[in-house]
């Protein structure tokens, strides 16, 4: 009887600890730039680039069910406000892009599509390992809309190059869908 209870307890604990993982990132290696993902606009949820010649890529977007729960995103997009301006922050692990403007609306976000934006330190900056730098970014796709259930949904894809005092980032490319990882309240 005692043994049966122990088995039952073991099975119950195992079920409680069970969690499933689903990968929402698709990494297809570029045949020209080794170690980097292809430049895509299909929502593959990956950013990759060379940092001082070494390939760097974001971790996979993974959703967990069970006891762990939630989604770990490879990108977060946040809008932050200060007294004088608003910042739109794109965070990809060790790389960050901060766009600064008096006010960011959904239309401003959409207007980034098909734009090549020089980041010169006044309209924003890049950050690599917390070190600030300048560069350029091309948004091939930039879409954002308010979801009927609340929150926002959208997508971004594009290319970038960064230069900081100690790092040169080349051949950057990104392709993401945005849902729970964008905070754009205003």
């Amino acid at each position, binding site marked *: 009887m005692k043994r049966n209870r122990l088995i039952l307890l073991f099975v119950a604990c195992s079920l409680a600890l069970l969690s499933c993982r689903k990968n929402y990132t*698709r990494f*297809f*290696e*570029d*045949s*020209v*730039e080794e170690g980097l993902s*292809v*430049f*895509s*606009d*299909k929502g593959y949820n990956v950013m990759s680039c060379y940092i001082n010649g070494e390939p760097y890529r974001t971790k996979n977007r993974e959703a967990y069910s069970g006891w762990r729960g939630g989604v770990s995103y490879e990108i977060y997009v946040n809008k932050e406000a200060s007294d004088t301006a608003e910042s739109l922050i794109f965070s990809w692990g060790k790389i960050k892009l901060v766009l600064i403007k008096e006010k960011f609306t959904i239309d401003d976000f959409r207007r980034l599509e*098909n734009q*090549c934006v*020089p980041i010169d330190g006044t309209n924003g900056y890049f950050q690599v390992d917390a070190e600030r730098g300048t*560069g*350029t*970014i*091309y948004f*091939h796709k930039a879409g954002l809309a308010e979801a009927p259930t609340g929150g926002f949904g959208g997508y971004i894809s*594009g*290319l*970038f*190059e960064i230069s900081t005092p100690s790092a040169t980032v080349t*051949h*950057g*490319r990104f392709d993401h869908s945005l849902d729970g990882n964008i905070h754009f309240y205003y």
Partner: protein
Amino acid sequence: MNDKVKILTPCFLLLVTLLYNGQTTAQTAVEPYAGYSVDLYNREHFSQINTGIQLAFINKPVYKMLVSLQGSFPLFPHAGTDAAFTADPGLSLSSFAKRKSGAHALSMALSHRFRMGDRNKKNSFSAVLSFGLAEHRIRVRYYGYDKKNYTVLNPHIDYKETGVFFSAGVHYDRKFNDGRLFAQLTAGTPLLVKWNNYYYRSLAPLSLNIGYGFDIEKKNARASKK
């Protein structure tokens, strides 16, 4: 060479050797051939030239078991253009990259050929069923654009996969004094593998091959007759 090829090729060759050595009295036949195949599975219907050789180690009037080795090479590479973009504000935002792609294949198969109709006729038809192991490669090359400053959007990427396939078809024989002229029309399945490329899939070839078969009497068969 990938792991699947390393493991499956020796297994396949061992199976063929065992089957071949098990046949001590029959005549064998060698059938070199060449032909054309077109892929039915990809959007770009790759065309290929086939060359191969078949060895019939069970060679009976109504049934043949054969092992075949075939190489396929691209006949007309597919050409196209894709858009390429840059983050350099000093350059034009977009450009075009020219693309060429072609399919290669290497396969080993074990085939069963069942003769249909009267066995004494000069012309005969057989049904062919095969299964085997193949490696399919689709190679893509981009050219004619500034590779340093531009990046191709959604580029076609190389495909390489090894796996098991099945095929079925019809075989026609015309007897001559020293052998047989044959034509074989077969349709193959795609490789039974997981899809790992967002553009290309494995090939599913519809092939027409023409060749000539020579009967070879095995030494041990001759000895047993003596």
